[in-house]
Structure formats: C-alpha cells, structure tokens
C-alpha cells in the first residue's frame, strides 16, 4: 500500500502547481509597484518638446494628472495613442514624457496622429525616466494634486486598464483634491 501511495506524489505536486497557475491568471505581472508610490514626483528641469521653454515640477503640478512616458520608437505607444487622445477629449489631464527620443520625430508624430498632451517634457537623455524608475515605454503614472505619485502602470493604457484600474483611483483623487 505504501509503495502505491508514493506514486501519487507527482499528482499532488502537479495539483499545487496548478493552483498557483490558476492564481497567476488573475495576477498581472506587468503591474509593477514603483518605488515612488505615495512619494513626491521627482524634481526636474527639462525643456518642453518643440520649444526652448523649460518645464519643471511646479509647472506641471496642481491637479490630478496622468504622466505618460512615450517615444516614437515604441511600437506599443502607437497602439496606445488613440485611446489617450480619447481620454484627453473627455477632459483627463495628460502630460507627456517624451522619453529618449528625437524632437523632430516626436513633433512629427504629434502632428500626424494628434496631440493629447497638455505639455510634453522632452526627456532626451532619460534622466527623468531614471528618477521615475521607468522600465520601458509606454508607462503611465497617476499623480495627485499635491504632486504625489499614486499609481504606476507599465504597458499600454487601453479601455480595460482605464475603466478597471485607473478611473476608480482617478475619480477618488479628484474627489479628494476638490473636497
């Protein structure tokens, strides 16, 4: 009897593995916490895209906004772009962080595909990205009215991500900011 029981071992191990895999389906590995969650957005002073004006933290704070890290070399950003435009149309404040990109190409992109951003920080060397802990493009940070980073999303923001993850938090922060 004992010898037979031993043969059930692989089955039991597989059962445990399957439970983990099941749990894994409802987890998103791309959902990465940022070291900056609930910490202030880093200070910076960088040119605005397509101009000589400097942008710093003060000029982009004061309201609940999304900070979208994008670049023309990033394929997924192109996929994400129409939905950002749609969000901007709905009145969501979006700042762009044009990450390790060429100004000319980035301006061409905005001219061609539309510009959902209030302003774009030209982070040509990726210094702001480094401070933020950017993992790749696209990434989107939700920052509250006090300039605190409240959420980080790695990957494309689409309707599902917006309605299930970002929108609830966004409405809540909006409420706090105004109330």
């Amino acid at each position, binding site marked *: 009897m004992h010898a037979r029981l031993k043969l059930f071992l692989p*089955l039991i191990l*597989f059962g445990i*593995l399957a439970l983990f895999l099941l749990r894994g*389906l409802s*987890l*998103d*590995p791309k959902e990465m916490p940022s070291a900056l969650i609930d910490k202030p957005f880093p200070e910076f002073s960088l040119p605005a895209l397509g101009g000589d004006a400097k942008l710093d933290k003060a000029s982009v704070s004061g309201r609940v906004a999304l900070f979208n890290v994008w670049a023309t*070399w990033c394929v997924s950003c192109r996929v994400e772009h129409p939905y950002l435009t749609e969000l901007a149309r709905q009145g969501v404040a979006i700042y762009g962080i044009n990450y390790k990109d060429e100004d000319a190409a980035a301006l061409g992109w905005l001219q061609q595909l539309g510009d959902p951003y209030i302003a774009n920080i030209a982070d040509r060397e990726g210094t702001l990205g480094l401070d933020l802990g950017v993992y790749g493009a696209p990434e989107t940070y939700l920052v509250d009215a006090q300039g605190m980073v409240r959420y980080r999303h790695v990957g494309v923001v689409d309707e599902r991500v917006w309605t299930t993850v970002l929108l609830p938090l966004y409405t809540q922060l909006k409420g706090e900011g105004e109330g």
Partner: protein
Amino acid sequence: MIPEMGHFALIIAFVLALLLAVVPAWGAWRRNVYAMALAPRLAIGQLVFVAISFTCLAVAFLQDDFSVAVVASNSNSLLPAIYKFSAVWGNHEGSLLLWSLILCLWTSAVAVFSPQLPLLVLSRVLSVMGAVAVGFLSFSLLTSNPFARLLPSIPPDGNDLNPLLQDPGLIIHPPLLYMGYVGFSVAFAFAIAALLGGRLDASWARWSRPWTNVAWAFLTLGIMLGSWWAYYELGWGGWWFWDPVENASFMPWLAGTALVHSLAVTEKRGLFKSWTVLLAIFAFSLSLLGTFLVRSGVLTSVHAFATDPARGMFILVFLAIVVGGSLVLYALRAPAVSSRVSFSWVSRESLLLFNNVVFLVATLTVLFGTLFPLFVDALGMGKYSVGPPYFNAVFVPLMALLAPVMAFGPVSRWKRDSTQRWKAELLVPGIVAVVCAITLPLVHADYNIWVALAVLLSAWLVCGLARDVWFRMGGSAGFPRGLRRLTPSYWGMVLAHLGFAACIVGVVATSQYSIEHDLKMSPGETDVVAGYEFRFLEVAQVRGPNYLADEARFEVTRNGELVAMLAPQKRRYLASGSVMTEAAIDPGVFRDLFVAMGEPIGEGGAWAIRLHYKPMVRWMWVGSIFMALGAFATVMDKRYRRQRSSATSTAHGTEYAR
C-alpha cells in the same frame, strides 16, 4: 470565401479528432477490431482537414486579405511574400493552428509507420493523440479563431509583421520547435497506452524510442535556432537570456534528454519502468506548460503573444485534464513494486540513473526559477524577477557534474562492471584530457582557468568516446571492417555526445573571452578589438522592400590585411514605424566579429556603436546540430526495422487483442 472554407475544414477536423479520441479507445476497451481499425484512417482524415484549414489561412495571408483579423494585424501588402507566409505563425491564432497541424502530422506518422504495432496498442496511442488534438482544435475554434473577419470595416492595409520576426531564422524556428514539443506527445501517448493496457514492458520502450529521439532532435534544432536568432537579430550579441519563454522550451528539452536515456535502460534491461513512464508524461506536460506560460500572460517575457485570461483559463483546464488525468492513471496503474532485475552500483544502469537525476534536477530548478515570480506574487510576497545569475549558478555546476560521468557511459557495461576495468579503459583518455586542458587554452593570449576546465571536461568526453569507438571496432586489426559493425544508434550516441562536448567549449570560451566595446564613433574613426581594427567608413541610406535604413559601413582589418566588410543597419519599418537594429557579423570557426548600431549621437554624424569579438560562439550551435543529427541517426538503426518485419505477423497482434 476561402477563410470560411478554412474555418469549416477546422470544424470537420475537430469532429474527426473527437471520433479518433472516442471510437478506437472504445474499440480497445470492448475489443472491437472494426472500431480499432478506424484509428489510422481517422488520423489521416484529421491531418487532411487541418492541412486544408492551414492552407486557407496561408492563402489569406499571401493574398493580403485584410478582412481577416489576424492578417490585418500581422501582415502588410509591402511584406515580402516569404514573410507573408511565415506571418501565418507569427501570431497566436496562426501558431496554434500550426501546432495542431504538426500534432496531426505526428499522429498520421504514427498511423502510417507503425504496421508492426499490435492493433490494440496502436488504437490506444492514436486515441490519446486524438484527445490531445481535440483539446487544441477546440482551443482554436472557441477562443482563438484564426479566420475571424473584420467586417464591415476592412482596413486598407495591414499593421505589418513584427519586424523582429521578419527574418529567415524565424521562418523555420517555430515549426522546428513545435515538431519537438508536439513530438513528445507520441512518447506521452505510448506511455498512456501502456498504462491503460497494463503492460509496461520493454516493448513499449522500443516502440516509443525512435519517436522520442526524433522529437528530441527537432526540439534541439528549434532551441538552437532560437538562440542563434537572438544572437544576430536582437542586436546585443547575447545568445541565451533565461527568459521565461526560452525556459518554456528548455524544460521539455531537459526532461526529454532524461527520457531519451531512461528509455534506453527500459528497452535494454526492463528497468526504471515507472520512472520512464513518468518522464514521458513530464516531457509532454512541460510542453503544455510552456504553451500555457507563453499564451496566458502569467509571466512577462519579450516573446509573449497577445494574451488573454480566457485563453489562459482554457489551457489551464486543458492542462489539468491532460496532466492531472495522466498522473492519476500513473498513480493507479504504474508498477509499484520495483523490478526484480538487479544491477550493481558500478554499471551502466547507475550511470544512466545519474544522468536522469541530473537532468531532472536541472528541469526542476529551471521550472522553479521560471515560476518563482509567480509563486511569490500569488502568495502576496511582492514582485520578484529571477535573472540569469540564479540560473547560471544552479545550471552550470549541474552540467559540470554531468560531464565527468558522461565519459564512463559509453565504455561501461550493463548490469555489472568493475572500476578496475574503467581505470584501464580511461587512463589514457584521462591523461590526454589533462594535457589538452593545460596546453590548448595557451593558444589564447591570457590563460583562463574556466576555459581550461571546460577543455578538460570536453577533451575527457571526446577521448573517452574515441577510446570506445577504437575498442568496439576491434582496434587497428579491425579497421576498417570493424567500423561497419557499429550500429547507427551507436554512431548517433557518439555524435550527440561530441556535440555536447563542443557546446561546453563554445559556451565557456565565448562567455570568458568575449570582448565588447560600446563607443561613440564618427565616420573615419577606428577602434581596435582583440587585434582587429574596425574602421567606420560611412553611413548610407538604404531602401529595403518595406523599410528604410541607415547603413553603417565598416572595414575590418588585421595586421593590415582585409578581414571583412561589415554593414550593420538601423531600419525603420514603414508600416509600423518601428526601428530595428540589424547587426552585421563576420562568422568564423574560432571567432565571430559583430557590429551593431545604436542611436545617432549629436549632429556630427556620430553613432553609438557596439563592437564585439566573440570567440568560438558558433561551437555551441554546431554542437547542437551534432546532437540533433545524432538523435536522427539512431532511428536508422536496423533494430527498429528488423523488429518491424518480424512483428508484422498478425499472430503477435491478435495475441495482444485477445
């Protein structure tokens, strides 16, 4: 119209698979010869309809039918025809269809090339494979229909195939890999059939052995191509990243390697029966697990397909049924009592047991490392990623442990051997290996202890093999007559082991001696890497069929003599706008020279340039090819053919069917 035909053919194939899964299995249970005899026909019918379906999808790609969703998102009218064809499997839906097609190919191959198999066994084997096909075809039909249309708004042009996949290596990499993955379904089906029949004897090992070797060979080639592609296409000169998807293909390979060796013991000596069955189940289960990991989005990877939790759930349920079901069957039917055949600790059996333990431990450590991020995340302990340091730290010592023992394998005898004899056999090879290890690394400028160790291990392996070949053909007296006495399966083993030795040297030499220069270069500048002078001549604009590129031109000289002209490119693909680095490589037996372009720097025409000197990097791919060829060679063995002619007599079959 054509996509609908394809869809319809897929439905018919599904029905045939369902019949194949049920009717012959029922026949085997009720001993109904007519029901059992349907199995081969159903298998071939299934292949025909999946092939029709696949052809329809290929036609949709080649004709730029952008009303089909997968074509619109993975092809483009500017794409060269060959890539339009390979785009068929450059996406989730199409690659799943390819998977099904290859499964049906293997099923039909078993049906056609197994006239020696007793009908009872054949019908069970084909039924099991039919059941697997039911799973994959319903996965296609229910969650990933490749023929879904974008109606009524047909896009004017497609999104283009991911430029990374527009590469000759990637045309054949997935089919080879799938041939391997799916090929393990044959060993799996034989194991399940044996468990169902309750007859776990040497014969099932003999039947499934050639199939397993072929599947293993394909998987080896597939993984090798993937590594080679990563090396020249990703542009940073790496060849293995321990990425979850790479691991997904590597785990079945490791389990398969254990299986290939364990089957030898089961066939020759009737030992390790339960163990071999379990390995057969493992190898295929790991193939399925790989499919799950790649397509469910559970782990992040550079390779992942567009993922969808519904698909993940489907594969998980399927995985649970196939793996859970077979492990239940295993627990209930595998022989619990250990075999009465005995062997001493100094024998070929124990050496092969050692091989099995090493490969199983390797499989489990890779599995653990791959799933570790998932484990900690599921337990709410945070986010982790497991990188190459972990894998290298556990994997390299395991292989280093394996190699010394490998030389004993071929020389050793079954059942009982003596250490005295081993000492006599291997003393000379051992001395030669030590001499090689001391002298050969001196060829390179700086003596490196790791390279010396790698040379020691592989020289030990090679000399041991040479000693064995010499001994078996009867020494100089037997030459060349003795050579003919050696069987293809023996030569296959020699070839595969030589390939492994080449891999060791290649991997270690290239990791230890590689030189990389990342620097800013303007046209006219030069840089010297390992004695090679790279002169940056100019940057030119080049136009390809569906991309524009900046092409840097380099002249490589050594001691004033021209070695190569290299022209790496930075391509901007027109349809997607994505930018891709195309490295330029001058290959060689003892070294590769590798140039890749980074980003332009400043206005003066300077570029970030990456120059690599990679010694012996090709050895691991050539070694892998040797391993694969060795495994293919074993199938030529007369043993399997002779068996065929003697066993075609129906007497054998009816004895089983009784």
